[in-house]
């Protein structure tokens, strides 16, 4: 078992996070008398955290680049407001509105990215300014009041579920399509992991022991199937979860296997060295901000659709949850380090804490204290491990 323990030690950060997440979930499952794992609550958990995770993906790239974006909460608000104004006041088609919102989000990202990447103003300052500017613009757009409601189609982005195509069998209270998707996904995941392992073996690289491979895939499969089963017993897979799945897979691919991802890590690790290696660091940094704006806009749409109205205070303080998710997930504040899966697990950890404590009736005051301590503990764990090595 020596290999297993060294394997664990080498990946202590990633496994540690997962174990912490599972432990926290079990804790709340017991403390809430079994409410946490109820299908309706699991579904809610996903819906509540979808926008945090969406933005954590963009924030992660910015943090890896060595910067930060404090404006995302305000961008969520201003995009929500824009959607409300366009759809409700001007009767613009909801789909066209989404396109406009995404474009505006990208433009906001470009605006901030320009100052950071080309004029070299620290992102902390630029996005602090952005935080004020876009919050202010939200109030101006909404004239200080909530705008809503939205058409049903628009709401579905956040609160809809995928249709049950396989309902022909007519199983009551069970969303068969969801379960089938879960099974297919499990098979694909196992197949991909197996192929990756084979590939590594073929090139003579060290591979993890076979029993570990089996154990890992069993656990992943159990988690995927368990989640799908819970969802299937409620209303099926939420639309948002499909969107999240696509985004997470896409960004995992970008960070781990694409040229642009590798360059972002290099830029964050040593900007000068990256620049002298032919990486156009200014343009790359600009791009990560545009990407952040785009994802913040997407989150803004999701939030507005979920609340079914555009409110001036939407997204208030959200930037902190997003940044916390990245740092809890192991990203380094000095740049160059961080993983998508870490940020996602970090976001879920924050989400489960919020959700579990709310069910238990813990006040918002203590929730903040607990979240703050968890952030500190996670980063302490990083620093401690680093020093020990």
């Amino acid at each position, binding site marked *: 078992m020596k290999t297993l323990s060294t394997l664990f030690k080498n990946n202590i950060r990633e496994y540690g996070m997962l174990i912490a997440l599972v432990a926290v979930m079990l804790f709340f499952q017991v403390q809430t008398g079994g409410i946490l794992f109820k299908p309706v609550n699991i579904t809610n958990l996903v819906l509540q955290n979808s926008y945090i995770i969406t933005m954590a993906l963009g924030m992660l790239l910015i943090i890896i680049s060595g910067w930060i974006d404090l404006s995302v909460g305000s961008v969520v608000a201003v995009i929500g407001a824009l959607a409300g104004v366009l759809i409700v006041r001007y009767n613009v088609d909801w789909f066209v509105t989404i396109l406009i919102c995404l474009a505006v989000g990208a433009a906001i990202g470009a605006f901030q990215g320009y100052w950071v990447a080309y004029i070299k103003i620290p992102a902390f300052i630029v996005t602090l300014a952005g935080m004020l500017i876009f919050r202010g613009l939200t109030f101006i757009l909404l004239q200080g009041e909530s705008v809503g409601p939205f058409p049903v189609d628009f709401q579905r982005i956040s609160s809809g579920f995928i249709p049950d195509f396989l309902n022909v069998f007519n199983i009551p209270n069970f969303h068969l399509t969801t379960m089938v998707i879960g099974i297919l996904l499990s098979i694909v995941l196992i197949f991909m992991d197996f192929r990756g392992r084979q*590939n590594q073996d*073929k*090139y003579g*690289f060290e591979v993890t022991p076979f029993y570990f491979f089996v154990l890992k895939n069993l656990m992943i499969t159990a988690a995927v199937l368990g989640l799908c089963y819970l969802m299937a017993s409620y209303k099926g897979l939420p639309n948002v979860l499909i969107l999240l799945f696509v985004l997470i897979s896409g960004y995992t691919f970008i960070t781990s*296997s*694409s*040229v*642009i991802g*590798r*360059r972002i*890590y*290099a830029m964050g*690790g*040593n900007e*000068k*060295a*990256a*620049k*002298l*290696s*032919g*990486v*156009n660091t200014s343009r790359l940094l600009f791009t990560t901000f545009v990407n952040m704006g785009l994802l913040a806009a997407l989150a803004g749409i999701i939030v507005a659709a979920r609340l079914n109205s555009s409110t001036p205070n939407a997204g208030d303080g959200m930037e902190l949850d997003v940044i916390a998710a990245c740092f809890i997930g192991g990203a380094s504040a000095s740049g*160059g*380090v961080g993983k998508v899966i870490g940020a996602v697990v970090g976001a879920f950890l924050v989400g489960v804490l919020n959700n579990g404590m709310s069910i238990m009736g813990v006040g918002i005051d203590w929730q903040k204290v607990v979240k703050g301590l968890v952030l500190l503990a996670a980063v302490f764990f990083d620093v401690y491990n680093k020093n020990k090595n």
Partner: protein
Amino acid sequence: MADVILEMRNITKTFPGVKALDNVNFSVTQGEIHCLVGENGAGKSTLMKVLSGVYPHGTYSGEIYFEGKECKFQDITDSEEIGLVIIHQELALIPYLSIAENIFLGNETAKNGVINWNEAISRTRDLLKKVGLDESPNTLITNLGVGKQQLVEIAKALAKKVRLLILDEPTASLNESDSDALLELLLQFKEHGISSILISHKLNEIEKVADSITILRDGSTIETLDSRKGHVTEDRIIRGMVGRDMTHRFPPRDSKIGEVVFEVRDWNVYHPIHEGRKVSNNVNIKVRKGEVVGLAGLMGAGRTELAMSIFGRSYGTRISGTAYKNGKEVDLSNIDKAIANGVAYATEDRKAYGLVLIQEIKDNITLANLKAISDYDVVINEPKEMSVTSGYREKLNIKCSSIRQMALNLSGGNQQKVVLSKWLFASPDILILDEPTRGIDVGAKYEIYTIINRLASEGKAIIMISSELPEILGVCDRIYVMRDGKIVGEMPASDATQESVMKCIMTQQQEVMAA
């Protein structure tokens, strides 16, 4: 025999899995300059960290006696208290504080927490006079060159009433004249009874100043040579360091020089901040296929600035002039284009500009040419990347546990090989190497020279910037001498001697000074 001031007995220090020091015995007598030499990783720095209390008493075994008393340092302040001051290779000065503020940092001339600036400044003035630095105590560190900063560090040590001064490669980033001044200072201190321990890779310096020389190899003391009893030659030291006689410090070359591959004409570059200051002044250089051209000169002569301005205008403003490759004008207006046109520049400062230290070796090697290991130029093909980088690991003999090891954990020589691999993988025709052997040990230097020779014989054109004259003479076919942004001399290496090159640099200097 003079009194022994410091004695370290049977020092053993282990790190998880490695014995860094194995029963090392080391002693320094009153008023001597004691040089500590050894290849990188031999344990020199570790020994000095034990001595200065960076590794506190109890984390190692063995005893330390200073002036007859046993020392059990808990941290670096304990050792400084009794007059043992270490100056690290990486200077520990605060750039935006003044000289005086830096000198008395942590040792302020204060009463009840209120600093007496008049006293601090007048004492700083005295100290600066002692080290021969003609600067105002209020000058900010950031406005000083490395050589002067080094002197400030020494002044800082003097302020602490130093008895034994430890210098870890103090001249690594200094040019010859600054180095000489520094060594001269050590000799002066010796007159005043201050002993020094000098860690250096530059054997000529050691030959010049050492009273005794202790050689470490693989964590053990090999021998202590006493140069007062008879001259110790460089070759003798090298033999002790590497455990073999290195009669040839430079691998033999068989130059096959072809047509002119690369040429820069009327190259002018201005300083990015100090407007109107020309850092390259009408420079004309050319390099032939299979030729190694040396760029000699003092630090600050504008060699790095010239190289970087050629490499995609990565330095300077208002750059004018034309570059030709194989007789045709080439566009080198940004780094991307420079790389695409077959120009590569390996920096003099591998940690700050050459490597992403927190990334794996393989990521560093492929960074400048990611597209070559990617499918459709977008998706990194990891197996391909692994096999390419493993190839370089083998070819350049990069010593590492795995190609996935972080660059941070490599020794200087191996880091340099990673930088070279990166640029070789970009498959340039013209390779500019800026101080390729700085701060690396003799064995690794030889390997780097061998690689340079091989590249030249493969038909690459190489421009090598170096501050070590023996290296320029030993490796290059032709030498340009640069001073004050101008090319002031050109000679075939076969005709040149250290003296003649030095003379070329100095003569020009005197002329300018006279003018």
